[in-house]
């Protein structure tokens, strides 16, 4: 890890500790930086006050603050059934691009904790105490991801996939007609919404997400205007496969 990165985290700890004084910063033998310790919060919501505390670890990635920290709870207070975890067991704070987008607005460890980690912990505490969710979560799996993008763009699911294709192909002509069928040009319509997401992942990442979503939709026999939603590479592979099938049938 670069000395400048370490210095940044050390400097940000002052701000963090002003609110969450029981957290410390350690370097583990493998060289990773971890902010760890108990954090407590008190949140008023819906006539209830929820007070709780958790033992957490924030693992600082090597490209910090390019990527946000990865968060774990270390006491096992949140059971696996809760489900909002990534494969490695870290918190799934939201749609991955949303987590990065929110963090890139401040690049501050303190605000990351207050605005992203604590709402997540509160989300679980509230559900445990009151048996219902304090605010909505996303649907399970790829549908949830698609839901996030639909809400972000404010569009139905086909236009959403078309817009995602622009990100996956890294090709979004500003003068083209916007896929949302408003009749306006992209630059005057959903162009800015695309610009909000574009900096946070490389096109390959959007392509990967879009591919997975389309595969899932096709498995469920949902009809799609394939050529205008599939990423370019996927579309070519798809056509090749279709041609092959046709040839086999003709023979």
């Amino acid at each position, binding site marked *: 890890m*670069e000395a400048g990165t*370490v210095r940044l985290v*050390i400097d940000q700890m002052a701000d963090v500790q002003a609110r969450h004084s029981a*957290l*410390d910063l350690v370097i583990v033998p493998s*060289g990773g930086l971890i902010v760890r310790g108990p954090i407590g*919060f008190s949140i008023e919501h819906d006539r209830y006050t929820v007070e709780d505390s958790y033992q957490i670890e924030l693992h600082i990635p090597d490209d910090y603050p390019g990527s946000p920290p990865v968060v774990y709870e270390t006491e096992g207070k949140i059971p696996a059934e809760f489900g909002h975890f990534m494969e490695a067991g870290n918190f*799934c704070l939201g749609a991955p691009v949303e987590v990065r987008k929110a963090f890139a607005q401040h690049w501050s460890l303190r605000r990351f904790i207050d605005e992203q980690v604590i*709402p997540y912990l509160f989300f679980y505490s509230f559900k445990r105490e009151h048996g219902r969710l304090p605010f909505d979560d996303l649907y399970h799996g790829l549908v949830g991801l698609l839901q996030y993008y639909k809400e972000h763009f404010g569009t139905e699911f086909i236009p959403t996939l078309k817009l995602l294709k622009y990100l996956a192909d890294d090709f979004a002509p500003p003068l083209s007609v916007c896929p949302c069928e408003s009749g306006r040009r992209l630059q005057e319509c959903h162009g800015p919404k695309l610009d909000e997401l574009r900096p946070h992942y490389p096109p390959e990442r959007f392509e990967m997400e879009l591919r997975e979503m389309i595969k899932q939709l096709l498995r469920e026999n949902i009809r799609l205007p394939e050529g205008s939603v599939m990423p370019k590479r996927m579309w070519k592979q798809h056509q090749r496969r279709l041609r092959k099938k046709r040839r086999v049938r003709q023979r």
Partner: protein
Amino acid sequence: MNETYNLQRLNQLFRDLAEELDVPPSKYEEAKEHYDAVGEWLAEDDSELATYEPAIYPQGSFALGTAVRPLGDEDYDVDAVCLLQLGTDKVTQQQLKAMVGRRLLHPHSRYKEMVDPQDGGRRCWTIKYADASKFHLDVLPAIPDDCGWLIAQGVPAEWAVAAICITDRKTWNTNLDWPRSNPRGYSAWFKNQMRIQFDEAKARLARENRAEVEEIQDYEVRTPLQQMVQLLKRHRDLRYNGDEDKPISIIITTLAALAYNNEANLVEAILNVVPKMRQAIKNRDGVWWVSNPVNPQENFADKWQEEPRKAELFFEWLDAVEAEHQGLLTDRGFENIGHYLSNAYGERAARAVLAKFASRQSGAGNIAGVGPVILVPSKTSSPTAARVELPPKPSKPWRP
């Protein structure tokens, strides 16, 4: 079990720390420009001092290479001797002090506004430079001392010849004897105590820069002794911030130099030297005594007599320094390095050093049996229930 390993990484860490506390070479050059300019002004043809061939040279921490960056808003404190070729039979202390003062406050002098206070200090004239440079220069009027008596005391002639007489406003009306000092002899003695490492460091720097050893200035190199003195001084500053009875630099420097055995490793030097520093503090019939190595008659600890708390604090400080540094060698101690460094050397320096340490550490790979090292310790053990407002649109958690 990891002592050797801890010693190694602690050494690198302490060297970074000493560098962080150090005064940059540019400040040494700036200081030299400042006192050389004063020397020129004092020696100009129309100066009443010109006939006495005034010469100016540094003394104190800038001469020893043990100066530390000032804490907070404080100034760099540079000390210089202004030596006039006069005898004690030709001039009185009052006259000597006044002569130098008149020249500095001369109507055409660029220093006349900068002398602060305008009537001079107890022993010296202080020149304050403009705020941005954060310097003040203490000019100590002095004349050569007769060195015969020092040589008779067993002080080597090469050091004794630099002895000087200085003035003291507090005693000059009651005591006709001139106060004596020997800063140049002291610098030479100090350098001699670290000769091997000093030559080594110069040769190393010359090799690195493909230069001749003669081209390397003294202030460009640091030996473990100099770095140790810098660390000890800053440790003292932080522990006794503003306490009038805090251990004084000249005693720390003298005792450390006496106990130093040209160790090449900074941490080893601290671990060896600190326990031995007590040995050179003598108790002569109930009087604490730390001799000036270039003037056995001078007791650096003379104030301990009137103020026994000074002695108490000094011994207490030595105990603390010894215990802390021993503790750091253990795994548990090392794991708390962040806590220790910010307490002992200040948060600013600690942050810079820990950042370097952590970036080195992250390239070093896994070390078996070594636990996490705390860089920034927590301020409390249990969390406070921070009142948090939910963001207007919190991210919706997802289940992949």
